[in-house]
């Protein structure tokens, strides 16, 4: 039995060992009004039930030697706000640093380009450049200190990073220039060139690049922010016959929660009273509100559009479907597809390799270059270091994955990891299960063909009354049809089920028969004139059943599992993408053929057992196909696991989320086409990013080292390299942001 006391959750600080748990729990339990206290050591939180005030609980924890604070109901929002505030402060600092550095760098560059030579010949020039050198040192200290400190710390740790390249590059330029200023005589006249403008400009531009990147980055994680924003902050629960508004973290399982029109559903639950239409679009991508009646499930984060409902909470806190989805999207956003791991292994060796290339380039210029060789050597070594920073390479994949996975989640498609994201884009053959995947999965009455009877309603009333006692799966379809038409059931007598044939009974003095042709033949019911109609219904994948009253055929009632309204268009989308679509079903051949024909699938396999579904997957894989398998049931599990990518049709509230590679939150197969479209777009985006990063990094290095100089006389300026490096990350992040505009559904 769940505790019904109000509860509060505290975060405990300073609890370093499991033995602290008992101490903290007993300290809280000794507070007046506390009914129970349970500490979760893994996340250092205590759930306290009872009426004690939060401040008393915090005091009790403090008296036990620890610190505590109340877990705010808007914790997720609070974390995001804190992050945004910290990012904003850092953004301002980066802009300030940029301004300081460029205030010196830009005038110096203009002077060098249009006004005078940046050489040191006369004493006046020496004094002037010494002042500029000191000013540059000031810029290095105020605007670039973080690069030098980072580089030094990294060096001490036997590792090299972006800071290393910037620090060594700008440091080299500054030291060389200071040697020119302080001891010009050690260098030939032609080599007495200063590069203070390069140092200041590089520091300025890289800070500017970081600032712009920070801003663009904020946008890439908007999907998660939107999902978190879906959560309601408070809930109205009915306790002791009174309505109380509490934070959502205080809602307990089995609480009765009230949701008014226009309010968000605070936790997952089952409707116990009222009916409404709920907008589940942010969770499933489905734009049409879904009707909810008693015993229907409602999901946290969805929006109540019309009626007032009461529901019993079934999942609260981190167990709600929305919380699980947020967690899964977060996890997937940080897992890299195989293509991304390649970039990682490259960037791990990149920085020291670049440093070696820089030294080799300097040596080549010194030994083989024209005069002033030392100046050329310095410029090329510095430029190689600056342009080669693998920052963009490291960002190329995670930024696109972050947007892509988020984009898919917005369309109601949960992609479990980076690997699935990449493989989904390569699928060449898609196997679709029939029942529940292409079709609704629930049989419905499709036709009532009247024979001797004149009134459809009375036929349905008698048939449903008769089937009320039956356990046959098709009986449910008839009962549902009657319930939809609000038909009242009648009392039945002498009910008898005839295995494999149907049922018979008496009702209001009439003898009723309901079943197949065999039953009718045995009971001498004349079917003349109606067998043709029954056959044509069977050809449309419908199951015809005969209904007789007092020995005469009254009607044919056909039941079928209807094809989902958008299965045909979704399958067309898949086929248009060059994907071979195959249908597998355990159903009989006739029904399978009818469904396949209707949805436009030419290759199908009927009467397939669950284990045979898996071997069909294997068979296609052996033919070289990259196989996607889509199914909804436990019977599809082996095939889903064996396929290159398993797509589960899930309601989004059960195990499917955790077990499938990709979960389609809504039943529609358009989710499948959307998943593949997002996957393709993301992979394309990653490739563009990697190409961009490689161009900056790989192609830039030989140019910086001076390979174009002997033929074209081109030697890259360190300032251009600095700008290219700074903007390469920005390009990558901006390109990833472009994915946000991607539309999943074809208009």
């Amino acid at each position, binding site marked *: 039995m769940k505790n019904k006391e109000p509860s509060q959750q505290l975060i405990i600080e300073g609890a370093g060992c499991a033995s602290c748990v008992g101490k903290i729990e007993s300290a809280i339990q000794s507070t007046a009004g506390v009914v129970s206290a349970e500490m979760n050591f893994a996340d250092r939180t205590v759930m306290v039930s009872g009426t004690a005030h939060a401040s008393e609980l915090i005091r009790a924890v403090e008296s036990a030697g620890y610190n505590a604070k109340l877990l705010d109901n808007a914790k997720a929002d609070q974390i995001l706000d804190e*992050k945004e505030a910290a990012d904003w402060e*850092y953004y301002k600092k980066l802009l300030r640093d940029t301004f300081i550095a460029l205030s010196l760098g830009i005038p110096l560059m203009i002077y060098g380009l249009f006004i005078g030579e940046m050489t040191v010949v006369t004493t006046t020039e020496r004094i002037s450049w010494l002042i500029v050198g000191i000013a540059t040192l000031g810029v290095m200290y105020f605007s670039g200190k973080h690069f030098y400190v980072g580089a030094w*710390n990294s060096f001490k740790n*036997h590792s090299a*990073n972006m800071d290393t390249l910037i620090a060594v590059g700008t440091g080299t330029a500054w030291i060389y220039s200071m040697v020119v200023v302080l001891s010009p005589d050690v260098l030939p006249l032609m080599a007495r060139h200063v590069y203070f403008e390069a140092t200041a400009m590089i520091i300025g531009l890289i800070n500017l690049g970081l600032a712009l990147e920070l801003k663009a980055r904020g946008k890439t994680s908007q999907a998660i922010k939107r999902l978190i924003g879906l959560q309601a902050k408070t809930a109205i629960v009915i306790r002791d016959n009174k309505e109380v508004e509490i934070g959502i973290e205080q809602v307990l399982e089995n609480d009765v929660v009230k949701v008014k029109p226009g309010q968000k559903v605070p936790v997952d639950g089952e409707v116990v009273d009222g009916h409404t239409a709920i907008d589940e679009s942010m969770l499933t991508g489905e734009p049409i509100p879904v009707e909810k009646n008693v015993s229907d499930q409602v999901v946290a984060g969805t929006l109540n559009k019309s009626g007032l409902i009461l529901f019993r909470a079934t999942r609260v806190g981190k167990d709600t479907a929305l919380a699980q989805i947020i967690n899964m999207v977060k996890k997937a956003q940080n*897992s890299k597809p195989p293509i991304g791991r390649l970039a*990682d292994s490259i*960037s791990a060796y990149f920085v020291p390799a670049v440093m070696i290339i820089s030294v080799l380039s300097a040596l080549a210029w010194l030994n083989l270059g024209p005069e002033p060789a030392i100046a050329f050597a310095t410029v090329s070594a510095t430029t190689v270091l600056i342009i080669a920073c693998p920052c963009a390479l490291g960002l190329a994949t995670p930024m696109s994955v972050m947007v892509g996975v988020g984009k898919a989640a917005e369309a109601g498609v949960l992609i479990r990891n980076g690997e699935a994201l990449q493989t989904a884009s390569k699928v060449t053959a898609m196997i679709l299960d029939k029942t529940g995947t292409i079709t609704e999965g629930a049989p419905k009455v499709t036709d009532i063909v009247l024979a001797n009877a004149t009134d459809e309603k009375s036929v349905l009333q008698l048939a449903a009354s008769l089937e009320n006692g039956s356990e046959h799966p098709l009986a449910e379809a008839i009962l549902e049809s009657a319930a939809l038409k609000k038909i009242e059931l009648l009392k039945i007598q002498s009910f008898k089920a005839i295995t494999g044939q149907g049922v018979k009974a008496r009702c209001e003095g009439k003898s009723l028969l309901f079943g197949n042709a065999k039953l009718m033949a045995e009971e001498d019911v004349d079917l003349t004139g109606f067998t043709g109609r029954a056959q044509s219904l069977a050809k449309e994948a419908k199951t015809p059943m005969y209904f007789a009253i007092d020995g005469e055929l009254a009607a044919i009632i056909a039941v079928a599992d209807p094809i989902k309204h958008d299965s045909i268009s979704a399958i067309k989308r898949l086929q248009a993408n060059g994907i071979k679509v195959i249908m597998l079903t355990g159903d009989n051949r006739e029904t399978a053929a009818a469904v396949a024909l209707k949805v436009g699938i030419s290759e199908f396999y009927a009467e397939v057992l669950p284990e045979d579904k898996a071997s069909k997957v294997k068979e296609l894989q052996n033919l070289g196909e990259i196989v996607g398998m889509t199914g909804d049931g436990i019977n599809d599990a082996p095939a889903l696991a064996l396929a290159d990518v398993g797509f589960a049709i899930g309601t989004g509230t059960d195990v499917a989320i955790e077990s499938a590679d990709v979960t389609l939150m809504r039943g529609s197969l358009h989710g499948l086409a959307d998943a593949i479209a997002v996957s393709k777009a993301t992979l394309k985006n990653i490739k563009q990013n990697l190409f961009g990063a490689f161009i900056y990094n790989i192609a830039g290095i030989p140019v910086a080292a001076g390979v174009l100089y002997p033929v074209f006389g081109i030697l890259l300026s360190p300032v251009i390299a600095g700008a290219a490096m700074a903007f390469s990350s920005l390009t990558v992040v901006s390109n990833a942001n472009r994915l946000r505009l991607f539309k999943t559904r074809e208009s």
Partner: protein
Amino acid sequence: MLIANIVGLATIALIIWWFWLYKPKAKSALKTDVEVIVKDGVYSPALINVPAGKPIQVRFTRFDESPCAEMLLIPELEISEQLLVNKETEIVLPALTSGEYKFHCQMNMYKGLIRAI
């Protein structure tokens, strides 16, 4: 010129040894509760020795505002965590089998190693 060439080649040899060949020695004793500071471009300590077979708490405190330091990834353990500035983020690792587990930032610029012994 000869001196410049010798200095250059020696620098290359130093880079290779310092960044690639150097094998770090563990400074810390085996602990199940470890504190890591994220500051100025590095994790300190970057090499963590932990006992194998026991759950471990690693507490990361990020003082580094750079966006590079924001995400912490331990790929082998499928852990990714956002580190907030000036805040402690605790990560509970499951009981590890003996071996090495790399951790790094999103861009693979900040690097560290957990060694389960």
